[in-house]
């Protein structure tokens, strides 16, 4: 292994900004994207459930 200390690892031989900028951007976007996709799914589900509730309420009122 070529790293002698944690500091050296993070310094990346002077290329810290570039290397961590790249890996960081990848990490950020690749965490954000699934998160957004998941939220989209949850939101559709939630609105579907809401709609069902509204249907039920309406039919209750009608039978009453």
């Amino acid at each position, binding site marked *: 292994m070529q790293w002698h200390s944690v500091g050296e690892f993070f310094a*990346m031989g002077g290329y810290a900004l570039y290397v961590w900028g790249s890996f960081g951007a990848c990490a950020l976007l690749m965490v954000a994207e699934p998160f957004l996709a998941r939220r989209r799914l949850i939101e559709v589900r939630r609105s579907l459930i809401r709609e069902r509730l509204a249907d039920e309420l309406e039919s209750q009122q009608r039978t009453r």
Partner: protein
Amino acid sequence: MGDHGGIEDCIRVSQSIVQWFRFASPQSFYPLAGRMVPWFWAAAAIFGIAGLWMSFFVAPTDAQQGEGYRIIFVHVPASWMSMFIYLVMAFWAGLGLALNTRVSSMMAQALAPTGALMAALSLWTGALWGKPMWGAWWVWDARLTSELILFFLYLGFMALQAAIDDPRRADKAGAILALVGVVNIPIIYFSVKWWNTLHQGSSVNLAKSSMATTMLWGMLLMALAFWMYSIAVALMRVRAIILERERHTEWVKHAVA
């Protein structure tokens, strides 16, 4: 014997076609996708961890570029995926246009943002690599330019689909655009390449002659991780799209119980 095998083959093929159409219905694809997603996440995580280990702790320091070269482990996979996803997206879109299978159009729609993301990452990491290596964030090199155009093609596809309300119409229009784009990508690639080399010798050239095998492995593992990630996230997105579009059908009402 040969005859017999032929018939069996026919049956198998037709069965798989039937199977394929079964999964081509949103109703059966939705749960299938749901079951596949965790597996792809797991694979992405495993390959990703292994790849990161290789890229930071196994692969040696590059003689010319020092530690800066390690950007390669995200840059190349992102670049590859951005190109590959476009092909897959156009394939699904074209299938949807030709056979009117709804799921394939939805798949194309789900892939586009991931492809755009990969193109953006390729541009971003490339720019961050270029500054220390060439001293400029951006040069009008053939590869860079065609990647930029690819990014625009993704954006165009997404903008067109977003601009059309009726999903059926959006699918068809998007499919035509994606197919036209596929015809154009090789043309663009070669034109840009030729354009660039006509002017100046490639002052822009990475010494990639003797890549250490550990480097190569790191890159391949990372590429696999990116691949698995793309599939997983596209499947997640296609599930949302299926629910959005099919929200008035009975099965969706039951599925979300």
